[in-house]
């Protein structure tokens, strides 16, 4: 294919929806085609991620290993679908093994090339990060939906939890010691000025234990970063529940509906008394949609959290009884 043909192809890829022609051309310039024979493994589960790929033609199977030396195919993907886009931004490991089920051509974007785009603050890097966040949020909703169904689905919004508290009613308090924040893994390598911009973009609030901050099915009103304490994200159906994530220090929650405009997919409840950074809808929109160094930090924090949430949600989840 010629460059214009690659650009035209990229324009049909759902992951890249909304990117301008100039942004697509920049991506086409640095992406490399690769062919796979039938049965060839693109990557193994647990392997360190080096690139993301877009399927040009052909098909692949996606399989996860299970306890007891077993494996299960979790998806089959074909043309215009993306693989490995989440590890591309968070630098983690591949969560499943991908194998070509027929002769397949993919277009690969390597992590070093993506990092170069980011370091140049190229608009395509910001746009791709936002699209990855949107796609990851969709997947997270699908995974949460499957988990909720396994508990016995009830009417949307009937999660059994109390309504979430609006951020205006939280008990505001002073900011934490910045030296403490800088020692969190989330912020260890972040530029000091950009971190300061992020940490001053919202207000700080203290919440007692057992406080509902977001209710499943309700309209989201804020995104939160846990500074101290812990907040659990749960799916509740009657007396059954699955904790899909525990947001401890340095982790965010409440952002899904702010990314895709839908209602909250989970209920967020403080498991410990917690000190939180509260980013209102307006602050979130400014950080998520911006192209500054602060937005760069924020998009990374959100994408890393989404990647961790997805990995956690895709693992077999324990059903917690409440007898102890």
């Amino acid at each position, binding site marked *: 294919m010629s460059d214009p043909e690659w650009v035209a192809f990229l324009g049909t890829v759902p992951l890249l929806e909304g990117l301008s022609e100039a942004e697509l051309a920049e991506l086409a310039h640095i992406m490399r085609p690769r062919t796979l024979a039938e049965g060839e493994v693109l990557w193994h589960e647990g392997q360190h991620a080096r690139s993301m790929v877009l399927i040009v033609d052909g098909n692949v199977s996606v399989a996860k290993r*299970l*306890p007891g030396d077993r494996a299960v195919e979790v998806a089959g993907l074909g043309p215009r679908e993306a693989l490995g886009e989440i590890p591309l931004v968070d630098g983690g490991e591949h969560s499943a093994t991908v194998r070509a089920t027929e002769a397949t051509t993919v277009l690969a974007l390597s992590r070093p090339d993506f990092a170069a785009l980011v370091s140049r603050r190229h608009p395509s890097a910001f746009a791709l990060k936002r699209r990855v966040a949107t796609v990851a949020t969709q997947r997270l909703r699908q995974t949460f939906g499957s988990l909720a169904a396994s508990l016995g689905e009830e009417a949307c919004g009937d999660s059994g939890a109390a309504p979430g508290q609006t951020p205006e009613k939280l008990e505001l308090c002073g900011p934490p010691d910045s030296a403490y924040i800088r020692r969190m893994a989330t912020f260890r390598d972040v530029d000091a000025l950009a971190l300061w911009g992020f940490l001053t973009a919202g207000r700080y609030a203290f919440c007692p234990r057992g406080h509902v901050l977001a209710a499943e099915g309700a309209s989201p009103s804020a995104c939160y970063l846990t500074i*101290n304490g812990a907040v659990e994200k749960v799916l509740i159906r009657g007396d059954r529940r699955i904790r899909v994530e525990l947001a401890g220090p340095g982790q965010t929650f409440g952002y899904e509906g702010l990314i895709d405009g839908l209602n909250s997919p989970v209920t967020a409840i403080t498991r410990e008394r917690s000190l939180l950074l509260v980013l209102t809808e307006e602050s979130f929109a400014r950080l998520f949609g911006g192209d500054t160094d602060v937005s760069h930090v924020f998009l990374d924090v959100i994408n890393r959290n989404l990647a961790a949430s997805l990995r956690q949600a895709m693992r077999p989840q324990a059903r*917690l009884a409440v007898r102890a």
Partner: protein
Amino acid sequence: MMNTFLNLAGFGMAAWQPGSIRADEPFVYRTTSLPDFDPNLNALAQKLEPTCLLAHVRGVTHGNREGVGPANLHPFRFPGAKVALAHNGHLREFPRMRYDLVAHVAPELAERIQGTTDSEWIYALVLSMLDDPYGAPELDELTHATACALRVLRDVRERRGIDTSSPVNLFLTTGEALVATRFSFDYGWYPADNMMLETDLPYVSLWYTVGGRYEGSDGESRMVGDDGEHSLLIASEPLTVDISTWLEVPEYSVIAARRTPDGLDYEMLDLDV
């Protein structure tokens, strides 16, 4: 170096093996030497074939305050008691709690505490919550006693104004029933002078794998077999490079398991104390 956490304070294990003399009594081995370089442990491991094993490698913070010696080695099991306990974690400011716990520990059990660890006090506290501290409790009673002991610890901490992160991952077993907690008091709150913050920030981990049997093949061990669940392995971290057959125990929860004639029963319970 003064604040480095080192797993160099010794090793201990209790192993229940049917067919051995007094089979309801475990084989117990404890040593302050390093397990990796212990030829006795290596030789024992070649011979033992237990149906339940509780093993612990002790770590301490480098410094002058920690006591390293035989009396502080896990698992703890008072003479005559059927329950053994190992602990991964630490109760911050434990010296401020110790004497408040005396009121909750049966006097004859308190007298048996020989070491200086918080873990041995937790052990005595759990035994004190049993109908018969020297009996072999059923799984439900052992689970309940563990939760009760954690509630006592929470109350004492509140009374003393102790409100910083203190992980309490406990492993208790009689050889037939097993309880393992993944729990922390005040997770996410740390003292201002915490020099080991990076180590303390993540929730202390606990993993398990379940299946037919755990065996070695191709140079690596893993849980294999799909003919029912007969084996359960719980560890602070996955024991293999490939972690795809390991599952993470949720935070604030307890695994309760027991051996049955057909294999094993186990369930995961939310631990809201």
